[in-house]
């Protein structure tokens, strides 16, 4: 029924006659769509970065911190009192069915020397399970084994940042470095992981067998003492079960009476990270919502100009009515003009938003991801704005009296 090519051609021509005005009217939509695209891109970029950081931590992670949350009526922060041991870690790995692996950690900062280079970093004593718990691969070399842990051999796995600072271009494999004056052989280099959620460089680290750390580097207040135990649950669904099993097991192992407080704390790292991810997503939506307000303002601009245009073209409307234009013929014509303006504005806005978000990401050092979905959404939304705000002027035009319109000067 409606002749689309003709209507579109007509609308284009009318808009071209008033180029400057059409462009200024579109500007509102351009800015609105551009802002929506840029905000969504920056927000999506942030979310994706956090998601990447979460997966870089390892999936389905729990962390057990020593020390009671209360101690003789006085509440203490978690980790204030060393209570965990490698034996706890082994027991959890063995006896908690929901736990896939457990890795004890005894860490401290230490000076590392190679030749005339030195670097201060965090050295963590742990078990071979660690790499699995944290989903961490080796870039080269081999991991240390259970035998290394048993024998407390002086071998280490090195993060890329440490390698870069100590070795420059040299191949670290098989080389011997001094950690706190103790010679360690480098047997492996960890794959690059990048920043953690907290912004720490995860590659600035060294792993050694936990027994070696206990005996040669940091010492222990009691046999087998470790600072924390990292746990990998079998699946996300098993996280809560794992937490319960660990609680029960450790209470039993630490001889805690019913009613007494735990002397350890289990935290669900994955859940915490997911919460962070969630809040970033909400932030993204919020930014997008604020940006769409400007799109709305752009729509009002279109309505304003269309109303002016209807008044200016009253006579034209009268002529069209006289030769047979019906109510919807007139309406479609004006709605088409509004729609074309808003859609062109939308396309330019998307281009601008893409350019803008890549600029923001360069300045802020933060990835910006324009998803096809958000582009499509913005395009559709601008079209809807055009139709919505074009309707009232079109409606007004269609109700003009043909004679009055023809007589209009």
């Amino acid at each position, binding site marked *: 029924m409606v002749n689309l090519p*003709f209507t579109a051609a007509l609308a284009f021509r009318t808009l071209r006659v008033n180029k400057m005005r059409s462009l200024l009217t579109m500007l509102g939509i351009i800015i609105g769509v551009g802002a929506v695209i840029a905000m969504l891109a920056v927000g999506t970029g942030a979310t994706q970065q956090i998601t990447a950081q979460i997966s870089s931590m390892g999936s389905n992670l729990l962390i057990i911190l020593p020390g009671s949350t209360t101690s003789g009526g006085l509440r203490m922060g978690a980790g204030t009192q060393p209570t965990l041991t490698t034996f706890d870690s082994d027991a959890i790995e063995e006896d908690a069915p929901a736990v896939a692996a457990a890795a004890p950690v005894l860490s401290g900062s230490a000076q590392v020397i190679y030749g005339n280079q030195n670097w201060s970093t965090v050295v963590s004593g742990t078990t071979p399970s660690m790499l699995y718990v944290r989903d961490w691969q080796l870039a080269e070399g081999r991991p240390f084994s259970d035998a290394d842990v048993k024998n407390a051999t002086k071998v280490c796995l090195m993060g890329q940042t440490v390698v870069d600072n100590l070795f420059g271009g040299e191949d670290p494999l098989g080389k011997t470095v001094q950690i706190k004056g103790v010679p360690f052989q480098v047997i492996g280099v960890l794959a690059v992981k990048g920043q953690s959620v907290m912004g720490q460089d995860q590659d600035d680290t060294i792993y050694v067998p936990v027994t070696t750390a206990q005996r040669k580097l940091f010492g222990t207040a009691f046999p087998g003492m470790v600072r924390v135990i990292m746990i990998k649950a079998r699946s996300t669904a098993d996280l809560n079960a794992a937490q319960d099993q660990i609680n029960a097991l450790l209470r039993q192992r630490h001889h805690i009476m019913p009613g007494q407080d735990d002397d350890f704390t289990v935290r669900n790292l994955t859940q915490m990270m997911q919460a962070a991810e969630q809040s970033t997503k909400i932030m993204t939506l919020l930014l997008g919502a604020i940006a769409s307000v400007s799109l709305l303002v752009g729509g009002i601009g279109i309505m304003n100009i269309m109303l002016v245009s209807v008044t200016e073209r009253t006579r*034209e409307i009268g002529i*069209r*009515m*006289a*030769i*047979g234009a*019906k109510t919807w013929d007139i309406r479609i014509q004006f709605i088409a003009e509004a729609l074309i303006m808003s859609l062109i504005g939308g396309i330019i806005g998307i281009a601008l938003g893409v350019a803008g978000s890549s600029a923001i990401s360069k300045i802020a050092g933060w990835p910006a991801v324009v998803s096809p979905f958000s582009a499509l959404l913005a395009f559709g939304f601008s079209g809807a704005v055009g139709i919505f705000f074009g309707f009232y002027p079109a409606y007004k035009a269609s109700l003009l009296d*043909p004679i009055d319109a*023809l007589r209009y000067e």
Partner: protein
Amino acid sequence: MALIEAKSISKVYTMGDIEVNALKGVSLSIAKGEFVSVMGASGSGKSTFMNILGCLDKPTGGKYLLEDVDVSGMGRDELADIRNRKIGFVFQGFNLLPRTTALENVELPMFYKGVPAKERMGRAMEALKKVGLEKREMHYPNQLSGGQQQRVAIARALVNEAPIILADEPTGNLDTKTSVEIMELFVELNNTAGITIILVTHEPDIAEFSKRTIKFLDGRVISDEMTASRRARANG
């Protein structure tokens, strides 16, 4: 059977407290193929009457039958459809769409009728040929003389093969020579195509081209007779 049948049509304009009786009971009938000129002093109600005949306006009282159909009860879109199919308008001020070529102006009534694009083009060219403007189809109204613009308007009135052309002072803005050319075109259309033409004019010379002259005074028809020259010819 009358093509146009006006039965005591009245039109009252109300502006606040003032009432203007523009038409005070006009009754007349016009048959198919007639060429009627409407004359009368300024403000006598000619344009008001033409607007009612053209279904642009509705009478306050009386009845208007177009091809035996009472149009008084019709809605906006129905009236638009009647204007589109049955009536071609030619105005004093030409009333072409600006920034639109002659060809597109002529295509417009067919567009609203729903004629396919391919057919529109050919028919519009044909109509322009009939009015002697086949070489001006890509011109915009501001690139055409007044007479040429009026020819485009006539082509537009013809193109949907409407049986009636209503022309309100079509030569009012044209010089004498051009006016005569336009009137000769109307005569030809009336003679060859049998199109019923009703035109308003102030000039007796223009009215001479018609077959029947209706005179208005103060909202009433005061005379309705054969045009003077024909009467003379008939008598002589």
